[in-house]
């Protein structure tokens, strides 16, 4: 096979895009120690560690996430890392984790597909005192007992910040359309609520004229946008709940002969193509959602095993990309 030679993009620099904990709020709240949790310590290097990924590693976020976990494990010399992938089927993820437990893992890192419905897993893990660190999405349960802690972004917050960018772009008034994520998905719900609440509170003159699901996929985003701009030519802004849909929207706008900036687009994730699109003037701003959980996850685990107190939730600080920083940040985007 011989593909096109890739667009030249600056290679990620050393610690580029490494997750940073929000300060001071990021680790606020109660903490948890080994004896509170009631487990016994062990050596991470020789331990069997399980990582349960929720979706196929087929979009930048999941690829970066799994990669960073694997890389970090390798870096720390953790030899027994078992990785499962639920292919977006929640029942399968439950089974996956149960089978990881059956294989005798001592530490579980889970990227949950859904926040609820973890009862069976939590019970089994608790019985064996296996600490669970959930990354990127929360599990609705008791930290430090049902599970150990959560590391990730605040999706509601991301929605709010996207709203701020949209308000600023439209000068506080206009018609906005939302490209929703997959229905029923926690991320969709929170990014939607965050956005809407903020708009209601900050810019009553902005009306949300249109919200349809683009299922987090580029093609769907394109198709929905084509219908949208056809029947609502007066739309001023589009809020896409992930970059893929935003870029789909861009293709649609190009196809309809629109110029960059005619319609203001704000999205969440911070993939390289999206940042590039900002540089090209098609996207107004992108709220990052950083998938590189490896270092923080294992760092937290190590702290915990060393008996130090660890926070019951670690909220990382996501940056924004916009015209001011897009070009220089390309290397750090994933």
């Amino acid at each position, binding site marked *: 096979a011989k593909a096109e030679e890739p667009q030249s993009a600056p290679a990620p620099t050393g610690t580029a895009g490494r997750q940073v904990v929000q300060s001071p709020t990021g680790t606020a709240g109660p903490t948890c120690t080994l004896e509170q949790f009631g487990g016994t310590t062990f050596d991470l290097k020789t331990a069997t560690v399980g990582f349960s*990924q929720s*979706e*196929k*590693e*087929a979009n930048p976020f999941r690829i970066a996430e799994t990669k960073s976990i694997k890389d970090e494990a390798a870096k720390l010399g953790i030899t027994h*890392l*078992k*990785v*499962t*992938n639920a*292919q*977006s*089927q*929640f*029942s*399968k993820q*439950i*089974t*996956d984790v*149960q*089978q*990881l*437990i*059956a*294989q*005798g893992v001592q530490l579980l890192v889970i990227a949950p*597909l*859904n*926040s*609820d*419905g*973890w*009862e*069976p897993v939590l*019970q089994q893990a608790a019985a064996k005192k296996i600490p669970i660190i959930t990354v990127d999405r929360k599990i609705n349960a008791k930290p430090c007992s049902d599970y150990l802690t959560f590391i990730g972004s605040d999706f509601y917050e991301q929605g709010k910040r996207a709203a701020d960018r949209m308000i600023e772009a439209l000068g506080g008034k206009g018609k906005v359309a939302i490209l929703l994520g*997959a*229905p*029923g*998905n926690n991320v*969709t*719900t929170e990014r939607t609520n965050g956005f809407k609440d903020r708009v209601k509170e900050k810019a009553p003159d902005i009306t949300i004229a249109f919200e349809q699901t683009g299922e987090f996929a580029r093609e769907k985003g394109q198709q929905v946008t084509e219908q949208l701009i056809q029947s609502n030519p007066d739309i001023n802004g589009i809020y896409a709940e992930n970059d893929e849909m935003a870029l789909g929207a861009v293709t649609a706008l190009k196809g309809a002969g629109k110029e960059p900036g005619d319609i203001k687009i704000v999205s969440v994730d911070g993939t390289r193509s999206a940042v590039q699109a900002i540089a090209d003037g098609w996207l107004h701003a992108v709220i990052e959602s950083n998938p590189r959980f490896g270092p923080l996850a294992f760092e937290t685990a190590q702290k915990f095993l060393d008996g130090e107190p660890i926070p019951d939730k670690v909220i990382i600080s996501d940056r924004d990309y916009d015209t001011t920083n897009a070009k220089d940040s390309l290397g750090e985007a994933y």
Partner: protein
Amino acid sequence: MNREQVSRLIQQHGAVMVLALLVVVGSLAFDSFATAGNAASVVVSSSFLAIIAIGMTFVIISGGIDLSVGSLFVLGGVLAAYGSQYGLLVALLLPLAVCGVVGLLQGLVIARTGMAPFIVTLAGLLGVRGLMLAISDEGATTYLVEDPAFAALGQGGILGLTWPVYITALLALLAMVLLQRTGFGQNVYAIGGNEQAAALMGVPVARTKVYVYVMSGLLAGLAGALNAARLSSGVTILGIGLELDAIAAVVIGGTLLTGGAGGITGSVAGVLLLGVIQSLINQVGNLTSAFQQVVSGAFLALVVVAQRLLSKAQRLT
């Protein structure tokens, strides 16, 4: 025992054999495969699909197909979780009632208008998921199971297996008797084998069809409810593509999609096969998600071919 009987036996139990084979291979290949814990996780997680597959078996033997089961499974779960705030009984009856009614409607449409089951239940698949989204605020609301007794039904158990497993086993037994040893069962085979002839032989075709779809609906709802009890919440993102798994399991089990032949044992074996395949993939533990799909696709093809050849070889000699 003559060759038709042998071939039938094999065709219906080919899946069982392949299953046995796979388990042996798995145990030899991975020492953590044949462990009680792993076996339990396979059986427990398979039990819900198995319940659905039982209903699907009846439908397919009757010459039909039911694509709505995946959606009914989710709906059942959401309703059960919602109902659980009013106690165990509601938590069970609400989903059964609604899913039963959906099955009834589908059955009536299919039996009365002669529209293709595939398309009618495809509409069911869409409509029911829509209904589920409607009652869960577009999937944003996840009802939590309030009633401890109901939760226990999904999580409690004995001998390392949870109640749903035993319920499944019981249902499977009942289904076998129903299929092989009752007039209803005979009618199902008859209309699947030759609907027109069945009618002329005095089989109540329409009624039998309706029953079959009601049954499928009820079982899908029950599976959903039990699963909600297990997860102690009505998760809204479940069951996409579940109908295909169920159909695959039933067909791998030796039931003909053209209807008129097949059995419960095969279907259950088929479900376990799918479970074991997944478990084996997890045992490997470091395949990329894409590669996992390639493997399970290849496995699936391998299994159906093996099952097919087994029964073919018997027929010709």
